[in-house]
């Protein structure tokens, strides 16, 4: 007999499970999507111990008859497509028929379902992919699926799961992103019997965004809308984007949905950045919730088993629609929201014409200006000369000493100074006279609640006020001029990224973030005294040549370097 053989079905399923089922959150995702495809308008997710012990998803959808329920656990069994034509225009969330058998192969499954209108229901128990019991039960609306002891028969996978809270935080993320795409469905998430998320159904996406992220985010959003372009090109974009300078330190509040399916796609991320071009500071990310409605023929969701990735037939078209809609929203804003308000509030005879004349002139001027400046800076940044320094583009300090020319990046230099102070010196704490309250999303709340003590060592005394609201009572004195909310959000972003790091490493990273937050920004005017101070303090630091992220703080050109550059030597 040859060495090559066909793998047994059960093993195939286990291998597939590796692709579809990475962690409890992936199970939750598959089950929620099945409920959505079953036309449910209420989905309840119950979790025990981060989903490692139990995941139970119940819905009020159409349910299944007995034969279908059994068949559902066969590989590539699906109700969602019938032929190849169907694969090209998938309108349902799932279609591969892989998820249920894969999940069943690595867990203990109980399914109770009854077809809508039927007088009886079916109950099936499966363990490690083998059907143990099939029995009749009374009718119950919709379908209930219970997944117990995930990865009980694949210890290697089990070992890779993180702590309950980390897994829960992934599950929350999954439920939130499915819920954002389907505001018309109500979602409830319970963990260890406690309600974590309760999202009543609504007909407005903005309402759902509000339920999840709270008022603080919603207040800062602007609506975008575009399309359909034409009869043949029925791409529509709707959504909400943040009004700069409102931003986050990472992309965690950027979500895109294609035909209600949450997706990650580099074309979309890039288009968002492009739309905001020059409106966002470096290392800041806008908040964006974008909902694209695209003909199913235009997009291929069958790229990854978990369907997180998508491919567009015409990516540059999608890119342009998104970038353009965002850009236009802001060019509208400068004329509308800044000028119209003035026109309204002060009744100005003759000024309307003056504004129009001015706008024309301004438009011309800004076009010319952009052409002149070739280093990509949006603003006309001033350069000034004082007794000791040249301040170039309001970003670099240039000083000359005995034998060299020093070019200092003001942000990087100040970042280094603050970082060393935070690291070496005992952090002094300024209590706030008027404490700041901040409303967070559930995911952020959990993360923050878990790390309150760590954050406290950094001088941020934060108190849990319940229902996702926190009170900031103090900030580090060294950052007394900073906005406490912004500082806290930045630190949260760092915590989110650094999950799984050691405590010391985490604190280190938070300090780096704080230094970055508090440092003088590029393109910020400085007076000669401030520049002198900065230079003086920089000399006193240990690693004065790089910022905490490793970028250089200064470039030194020795006289001999200049001589070389001018070919004198």
């Amino acid at each position, binding site marked *: 007999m040859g060495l090559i053989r066909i793998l047994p079905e059960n093993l195939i399923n286990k291998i597939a499970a590796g692709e579809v089922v990475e962690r409890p959150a992936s199970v939750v995702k598959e089950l929620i999507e099945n409920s959505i495809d079953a036309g449910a308008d209420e989905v309840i997710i119950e979790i025990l111990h981060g989903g490692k012990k139990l995941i139970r998803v119940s819905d009020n959808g159409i349910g299944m008859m007995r034969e279908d329920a059994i068949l559902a656990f066969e590989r590539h069994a699906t109700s969602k497509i019938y032929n190849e034509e169907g694969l090209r225009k998938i309108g349902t969330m799932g279609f591969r028929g892989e998820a249920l058998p894969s999940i069943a192969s690595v867990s203990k499954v109980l399914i109770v379902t009854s077809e809508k209108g039927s007088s009886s229901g079916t109950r099936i128990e499966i363990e490690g992919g083998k059907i143990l019991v099939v029995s009749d039960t009374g009718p119950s609306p919709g379908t209930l699926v219970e997944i117990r002891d995930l990865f009980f028969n694949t210890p290697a996978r089990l070992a890779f799961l993180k702590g309950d809270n980390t897994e829960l935080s992934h599950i929350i993320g999954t439920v939130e992103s499915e819920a954002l795409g389907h505001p018309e469905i109500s979602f409830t998430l319970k963990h260890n019997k406690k309600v974590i998320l309760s999202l009543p159904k609504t007909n407005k996406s903005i309402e759902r965004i509000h339920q999840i992220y709270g008022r603080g985010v919603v207040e800062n959003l602007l609506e975008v809308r575009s399309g359909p372009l034409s009869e043949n090109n029925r791409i529509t974009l709707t959504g909400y984007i943040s009004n700069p300078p409102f931003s986050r330190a990472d992309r965690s509040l950027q979500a895109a949905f294609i035909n209600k399916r949450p997706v990650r796609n580099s074309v979309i991320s890039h288009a968002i950045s492009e739309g905001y071009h020059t409106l966002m500071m470096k290392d800041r990310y806008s908040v964006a919730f974008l909902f694209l409605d695209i003909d199913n023929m235009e997009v291929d969701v069958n790229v990854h088993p978990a369907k997180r990735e998508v491919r567009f037939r015409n990516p540059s078209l999608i890119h342009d629609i998104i970038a353009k809609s965002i850009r236009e929203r802001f060019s509208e804003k400068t004329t509308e929201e800044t000028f119209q308000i003035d026109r309204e509030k002060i009744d100005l005879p003759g*000024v309307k014409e003056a504004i129009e004349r001015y706008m024309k002139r301004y438009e011309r001027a800004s076009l010319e200006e952009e052409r002149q400046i070739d280093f990509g800076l949006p603003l006309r940044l001033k350069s000034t000369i004082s007794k000791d320094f040249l301040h170039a583009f309001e970003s670099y300090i240039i000083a000359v000493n005995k034998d060299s020319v020093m070019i200092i990046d003001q942000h990087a230099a100040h970042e280094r100074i603050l970082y060393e102070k935070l690291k070496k010196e005992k952090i002094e*704490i*300024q*209590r*706030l006279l008027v404490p700041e309250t901040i409303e967070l999303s559930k995911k952020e709340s959990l993360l923050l609640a878990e790390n309150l003590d760590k954050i406290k060592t950094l001088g941020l005394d934060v108190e849990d006020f319940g229902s996702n609201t926190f009170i900031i009572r103090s900030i580090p004195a060294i950052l007394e001029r900073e906005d406490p909310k912004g500082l806290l959000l930045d630190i949260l972003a760092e915590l989110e990224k650094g999950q799984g790091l050691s405590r010391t490493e985490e604190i280190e990273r938070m300090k780096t973030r704080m230094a970055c937050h508090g440092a003088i920004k590029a393109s910020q005017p400085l007076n000669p005294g401030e520049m002198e101070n900065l230079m003086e303090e920089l000399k006193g630091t240990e690693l004065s040549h790089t910022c905490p992220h490793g970028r250089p703080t200064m470039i030194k050109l020795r006289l001999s370097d200049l001589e070389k550059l001018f070919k004198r030597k």
Partner: protein
Amino acid sequence: MKLSVSKDEIQEKLSNIQNIVEKRNTMPVLSHFLLSAGKKDSYIVATDLETALKEPLQVKVEKEGRLCIPARKLFEIVREVDGDLSFESTDEQWLRVKAGVSDFRLACLSANEFPAWPGMEEVENIVVEAKTLMDMIEKTIYSAGESDTRYTLNGLLFHIKPEEVRLTIVGTDGHRLASINKQIEGEVKDEKKMIVPRKAASELRRFLDGEVDKVKISMGRNHVLFSIGDVQFLTRLIEGTYPNYEQVIPVANEKKVSIGRDAFTKALRRVSIMSKERSNAIKFDLTEDVITLSSSSPDLGEARDEVVVDYKGDKLSVGFNARYLLDVIGVMTSERVILELQDPLSPVILKEEGDEDYRCVIMPMRI
């Protein structure tokens, strides 16, 4: 338009508007002021759409007229020329300015382009002594925020309660707060809370130390107008909710300390030399009759000083940002100041001895 004006008069009136006229040139007309010359009265108006100023101008008018004149350029001309000036314009584009044998032609804009003075609705009026208002602004403005993201903090709160004939002005940046309460004339029907932008409050001071002794404050929904004699100063209000300042001011601090203001200032300045640059942290050790002030910075060294005080009670150690204390006692005028403390984490009150109307609150530091 044809008129003549004395150099002193026009120079003074133009210098008053220099901070209001727009320098950034976002809307050309805003870098101009409106000159309105009439046989009965003549005045100039300047605005940046946020604040607006109208002041009378003493001129001899031969021919009436209205014109928008570039504020900066005319000011420069007035400063450089000798003797009185005469203005003459025949159209809406050019103004001829003459002084002695000096002769200028200045490009102008039509008076129709100038923004109209905002109409105010639901106005209520009160009257305050100019000196009092000046003092109230001086004593609160330093603790207001500057370019804070909590934008309501970038202004001064003017608060009037209907049952009291008093005005309270409050400034806070979230770390410290100053509140001053004084007698006024006139009443309001409902409670009034207006947030006056910091820049406007600061600019208003310029008109309060003249000869006029009363200021009429006309409060509308979106604007407030200060009438100081013939000068009218108007500003748009900041919209939003100001923090509940009354909640923040402690009422039952038990440890009361009386300190000579001069000695206190000197000791604070000496000790803060060695405090860390950004936080200005200094430590107070309060014992019977003496406060020991100290500071230290790992790279620089240490400082220690003592001030004799009137205090009988338990010992207490507490940290402060020296700058906050210096700001407060810098605007106080009494010989002695009163410090009211409770514990190392609770807000501290500073008062002038014998005056309950002015209260400053500072949050301690943990050092």
